[in-house]
């Protein structure tokens, strides 16, 4: 029945959490979405195997630090004109309202910090992108906890939890996080420039949002920093209980 009469089911089963989640998350069979392949899926499969055994039982010693992790890929990318040795792409990440009952504990951007194109070597990093006329500004990525940590030889992870607190509304009223994926080329070459414009960063830069289920961890929960409550779309659980 999912996808066909979800409204009717919602009214019939308003208190069944799993039914709610299925109605929200399960795509209809007829709406079979294209398989997400490549790096993001491989990354999440690794995360899964570190956190659960082959039967799906969560591992006792898992270090994930959250009960839910969402990987968000950029919806669009734009290659900027070449600036000396710098190759730059702007990436748009659509942010959606968090589901009630889940608390954001951390947000990171994961990206390839080493790229090889046409035998050329590029060193890459990610920066928040702010349009000139935009009034809301990011904090510097070079400060505090935003320094990238190397996950492996090929992946780097940078904490952007503070950035998520910003009100990132675009002119259409959607929440969009814009990041610049910047790669520095060791040797100049026209062939590489052409290759760069054809390179899609949609597969090599993505966001990870870590959430905890506040239904069961309400006693452990700390009050959210200002801004995260806005992102999650509700009051922190402790405030709600006090009220």
């Amino acid at each position, binding site marked *: 029945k999912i996808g066909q009469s979800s409204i009717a089911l919602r009214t019939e089963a308003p208190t069944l959490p799993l039914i709610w989640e299925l109605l929200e*998350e399960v795509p209809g069979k007829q709406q079979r979405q294209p398989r997400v392949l490549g790096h993001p899926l491989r990354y999440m499969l690794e995360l899964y195997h570190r956190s*659960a055994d082959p039967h799906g*039982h969560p591992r006792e010693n898992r270090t994930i630090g959250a009960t839910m992790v969402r990987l968000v890929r950029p919806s669009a990318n734009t290659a900027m004109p070449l600036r000396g040795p710098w190759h730059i792409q702007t990436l748009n990440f659509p942010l959606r309202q968090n589901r009630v009952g889940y608390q954001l504990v951390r947000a990171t951007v994961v990206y390839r910090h080493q790229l090889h194109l046409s035998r050329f070597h590029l060193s890459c990093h990610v920066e928040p992108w702010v349009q000139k006329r935009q009034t809301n500004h990011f904090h510097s990525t070079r400060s505090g906890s935003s320094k990238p940590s190397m996950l492996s030889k090929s992946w780097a992870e940078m904490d952007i939890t503070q950035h998520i607190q910003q009100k990132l509304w675009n002119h259409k009223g959607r929440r969009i996080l814009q990041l610049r994926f910047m790669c520095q080329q060791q040797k100049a070459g026209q062939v590489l420039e052409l290759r760069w414009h054809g390179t899609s960063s949609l597969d090599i830069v993505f966001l990870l949002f870590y959430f905890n289920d506040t239904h069961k961890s309400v006693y452990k929960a700390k009050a959210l920093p200002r801004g995260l409550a806005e992102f999650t779309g509700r009051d922190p659980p402790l405030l709600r209980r006090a009220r």
Partner: protein
Amino acid sequence: QAGTIRSEVPGPSQEHDGPESSQCSLHPFQVSFHQLGWDHWIIAPYLYSPNYCKGTCPRVLRHGLNSPNHAIIQNLINELVDQSVPQPSCVPYKYVPISILLIEANGSILYKEYENMIAQSCTCR
């Protein structure tokens, strides 16, 4: 009047409670997400073992079944007062969670731990 009641409660017997194998217990059961019609959504794990509880509840609920006081009283009511009140049912007692990796409709990939998805033991209540 516990003493009076106790004297009227028959002890456990194979005759009334059925053979050992049909008594309330946990039964292993495995299903694939393909069978549930969710394989276009759930990437891992491939198989899911929800298990289930099945069997008759004994007329005298032994300690290991973790039955609440209410179930013991309901058994007595069924036995001594009114047989239209049913005996307690064999249902899951403890559950464990399952971790699932899935693809959402918008293409996001989600790791999520769902509570109470696998029955681990049974009780009569």
